[in-house]
């Protein structure tokens, strides 16, 4: 039973960690590769 509990705790921790890192990277990419110049004017 302890094994199952470890799987639950580790599983949720890994999911939040992986997706948290993905979130951070995507925010960074969004800033670096976001719309600029002509593209930004078009969006406005």
């Amino acid at each position: 039973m302890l094994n199952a509990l470890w799987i639950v705790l580790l599983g949720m921790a890994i999911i939040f960690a992986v997706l948290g890192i993905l979130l951070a990277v995507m925010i960074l990419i969004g800033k670096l590769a976001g719309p600029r110049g002509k593209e930004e004017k078009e969006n406005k």
Partner: protein
Amino acid sequence: MGAAGEFLGFLNLTWQATVMLVISGVLIWLGIAKKVEPVLLVPIGFGCLLSNIPLGGAAEEGGFLAVLREAGIHTEIFPLLIFIGIGAMIDFEPFLQRPYTILLGAAAQFGIFGTFFLAYLLGDGWLHLLDFSLQDAASIGIIGSADGPTSIYVATTLQSKYAAAIVVAAYSYMAMVPIIQPPIIKAMCSKEERALKMPSAAGKISQRTKILFPIITVLVVGLLAPKATPLIGCLMFGNLLRECGVVERLSLAAQNELANIVTILLGITVGGMMSGTEFLRPETILVFILGIIAFSLDTVAGVLLGKLMCVLSGKKVNPMIGACGISAFPMSSRVVQKLGLEANPYNHLLMQAAGANTAGQVASVVAGGVMLMLVPMFV
């Protein structure tokens, strides 16, 4: 019966086969008359019909359904090919506009792990009431990914005895999201919370970001949770075909021909796994009950994090969108949109909900990979 029993099917009809023939009729009826996920239920129902005709041999060794099962399910090829099609169909822009929704997707995977724990508790873990090993419990839990291909992939990789029931439960409950989720959301969110409007003016996402997203997702997820690589790889490959803008022909083929052909083959093969002797046992009923629990826990966990985000953001996040963290796309988004409009006729939440819903698609694949990584470590 004599010699006639060797070639007349109805003389060999068992009660299990009869019940399964009725079930196949119900599935086909639901698909055609009630239009409940017809793309899935019609092929599944027909596969079930074929596999339960006595002496028909369609699902027995050497039969065409058995060959398809061996070639497409046991090798995990069908779910992976389906993911290329799904990736090509999904527009991740609503998610990229609100990347924080990925955390709602993460929270909504709790249904997988909570149900896994419960299944293992009922099985080999403690009570020994049912024949659920650690692998079976993990495969049952994965119904909570609300994602048919992920359920097939995990259940077959872990060689669960209940793969057929798990796959049918996963697909059936995806269709039943509009019935399962609203009472839970209404119980957890007051009318005031449901009426909460969200800022709609999210910035436009550049083409560069859309192209980089699938590549970066594969790198991040693959390097941190390598067991998820085949699933996330196929999903993101399909999405890259869609977004790169230079292979429109391939993108359309993935969205249409590939997705349709594999859906036909997958559906009829899954139906072919529903033979009476394997399907009709107490554990199957428990698998279906645990499946509903998985979807419900997903919804509860997603809404709880939605409520936390609502407080932290100064009421800029409607907690209901947490329920879309499950990957049942787009059913879950439509549920939240409908509930939002019921509470406030000017409250359009579809795009915000779609963001969380597509985030849930990524999260459920990661959860499948994490399960595949952890279970062998503890067996």
